[in-house]
């Protein structure tokens, strides 16, 4: 799945709050064991540079949250009313 294309659809003003909500999913969830260590390190890389709300940061966060907890990720996307993103990410 090309998350980067989806992230481009997220309005800039929403990117900060969205990244906060997504990081909560992986910090709070036990399912985060499903996140590969290399992806976790990439997230830390963007966090170190305060870029979790950048296109690249959000792309990696989405990858991680979908690995860890797809259901909660979709709920967060619903909260932000990102309909197109929701449709694109909706499991078949």
């Amino acid at each position, binding site marked *: 799945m090309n998350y980067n294309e989806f992230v481009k659809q997220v309005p800039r003003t929403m990117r900060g709050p969205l990244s906060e909500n997504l*990081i*909560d999913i992986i*910090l709070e969830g036990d399912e985060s064991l499903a996140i590969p260590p290399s992806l976790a*390190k990439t997230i*830390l890389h963007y966090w170190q540079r*305060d870029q979790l709300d950048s296109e690249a940061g959000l792309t990696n966060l989405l990858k991680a949250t979908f690995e860890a907890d797809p259901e909660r990720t979709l709920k967060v996307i619903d909260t932000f009313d990102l309909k197109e993103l929701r449709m694109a990410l909706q499991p078949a």
Partner: protein
Amino acid sequence: MKSFGIEFVPMELFWKTTYYTMQAEKLGYDSVWITDHFNNRNVYVSLAFIANYTDRIKMGPGVTNPYLIHPVYTAQSVASLNEVAPGRVICGIGAGDRTTLEMLGRKMESPLRAMRESVELIRAQIAREKSGYEGRMFSTSAGARFNFKTKGEVPIYIGAQGPKMLGLAGEIGDGALINASHPRDIERAVSLIEAGANKAGRSMEDVDVAAYTSFSVADDRKSAKKSVVPVVAYIVAGSPPQILERHEIPVESADEIRKNLAERNWGEAFGAVNSDMIDAFSICGDPDQCVEQIDDLFRTGITHFITGSPLGPSKKKSINLFGNEVMPHFKES
């Protein structure tokens, strides 16, 4: 100067502890302490990971102990870490807790002697002294040096609760980690540390005195309290009678909690924790209440305040609350 630290028990994945430490660093915390227990993730792996993603925050074990980890290995670990994070490494060491030691068949023999020799040996080893070390509990032969060069010193903080250990911390420690949260206990500890420092011809300016507290902050006191109850239950259960009496907590209540914890009756054990116990053994509340309680601790003469477990109902939120609403009150004053 007032410093602020944070403790993590590495029960979570390495990257999560690192994330929280980076968050703390961004908010201006000065130190991070990782606990050293055989049944959690390894302290030095955690610290090495943290070192790679941080630039300023000081870091170290909080605390290791000489009964399970030989002081030479502690010296090796902190000296190696000091290569990754030069000048940022600190080393907390204490006598450990009897229950954990007994689980591994070790006894806490001569804790004062063990601590004094450990501090001396760690320093000698980091300084790459050639002569070896001859103690009653630990010794190394001449030439038992590291094969790698070490740079700089690593400040050693002594974890202490009892009067003699607090005195020793004042006498030989670069810092003291007081395992308490109530101003009455901290005040008493500070005076014992000062007596130890005076005995050695040192001043209190030579010792960074830290209150290593059980801490919980949330938007409201109720949530903060709920989160701190399990930690307080264990503290009450493990406290000697004289400490319980100092806080007017019936010894029988502590016995009951201890019994229920041992039998894993969590509901009854945690349900028996009352407000007096929470006040005696934790800093807990909304940000304003925490400011008030921490202010009382700084008035006793401490120079460093450490937020220990549980931190609050949500680690991320509690770190933000502390960094944004509690710490600035002291950093800017």
